């Protein structure tokens, strides 16, 4: 699987993506979770206590004069090696890589970003399932951060703004250069007709529906993983079903 979670800010992507990763790993599949959002989110939802897991300086080297981009993975360091060596390890064996927070050192952040993109480009298909969490809104989807993904899951809640964002993301994600499947996951579902509303107003297939659940909000406030804090909650179970369904259908 190579999937990217996108959606309007605040819709609940990180909680769903993190839970998805843990559930997928429990099926025995190797999972690489990636977060290109400078704000912490996915790490906590995975059950990690640190939220900052950038690649260290030793992993990145400067390219010959004049070549662009200026940075690349150190000679001899393959994408797979980089993950084995430097990715943080979350519960259930999920590996985690993040840009790193912007601490005012733009150069270091930029280096880390370039290496991150190289890893995504070069990582062979045969081992890692890659699950990514993009920051809210449309900007990163536009600048190609989701290019690694074969399936884009747009997390949508039944509000006008979220639906409008979903339509925009859908258009941005459908790209002839990178043919991919774009589907929706309904979140904060409260009423009977919500899923049908989302399907109708986005024109997307809704592959999963996560009910409104206090447990997700609580987990976020405690900076903990929903799957650890509330494993029996309706929301967590809904995400587990989503994982089962996507694995069985092999649609990612």
């Amino acid at each position, binding site marked *: 699987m190579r999937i990217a979670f996108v959606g*309007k*800010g*605040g*819709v609940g992507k990180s909680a769903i993506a993190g839970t998805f990763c843990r559930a997928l790993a429990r099926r025995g599949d190797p999972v690489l979770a990636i977060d290109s959002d400078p704000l912490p989110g996915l790490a906590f939802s995975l059950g990690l206590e640190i939220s900052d897991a950038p690649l260290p300086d030793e992993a990145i080297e400067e390219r010959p004069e004049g070549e662009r981009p200026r940075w690349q993975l150190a000679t001899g360091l393959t994408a797979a090696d980089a993950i084995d060596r430097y990715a943080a390890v979350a519960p259930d064996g999920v590996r985690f890589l993040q840009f790193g927070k912007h601490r005012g050192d733009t150069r270091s952040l930029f280096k880390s970003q370039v290496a991150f993109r190289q890893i995504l480009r070069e990582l062979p298909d045969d081992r890692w399932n890659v699950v990514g969490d993009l920051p809210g809104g*449309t900007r990163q989807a536009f600048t190609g951060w989701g290019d690694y993904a074969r399936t884009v899951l747009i997390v949508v809640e039944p509000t006008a*703004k979220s*639906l409008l*964002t979903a339509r*925009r993301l859908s258009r941005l994600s459908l790209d002839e250069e990178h043919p991919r499947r774009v589907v929706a996951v309904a979140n904060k579902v409260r009423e009977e007709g919500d899923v049908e509303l989302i399907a109708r107003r986005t024109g997307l297939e809704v592959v999963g529906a996560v009910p409104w659940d206090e447990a997700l909000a609580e987990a976020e406030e405690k900076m903990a993983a929903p799957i650890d804090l509330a494993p029996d909650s309706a929301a967590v179970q809904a995400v587990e079903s989503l994982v089962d369904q996507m694995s069985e259908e092999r649609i990612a």
Partner: protein
Amino acid sequence: MRVAVVGKGGSGKTTTSAVVARTLARHGLSVVALDCDSNPNLGISLGVGDFETERLVGMREGLDEGGEEHAPGWDDLISRFGSDAPDGVRLAVVTRIDNPEPG
């Protein structure tokens, strides 16, 4: 008077902007509501409707397509690319919506 509204996406920024804009307008001020988000939703909170909001053309887009020779003035921009929202608020979207670079 200039008021800037900031915050994490999903925190209520756009709702706040909209209610403040219309309330100031109701108190007699001439208000321009500027949506600077690369994913603009202010129209919905203002009450112009999601269909209309989706149809709004960003100012940059409008300018690019118009093949402008001279940079238009601010008032000109607002009158050409803005649209009417309730309570006399004038809404303008800054970015290109089909090409959401940072506003």
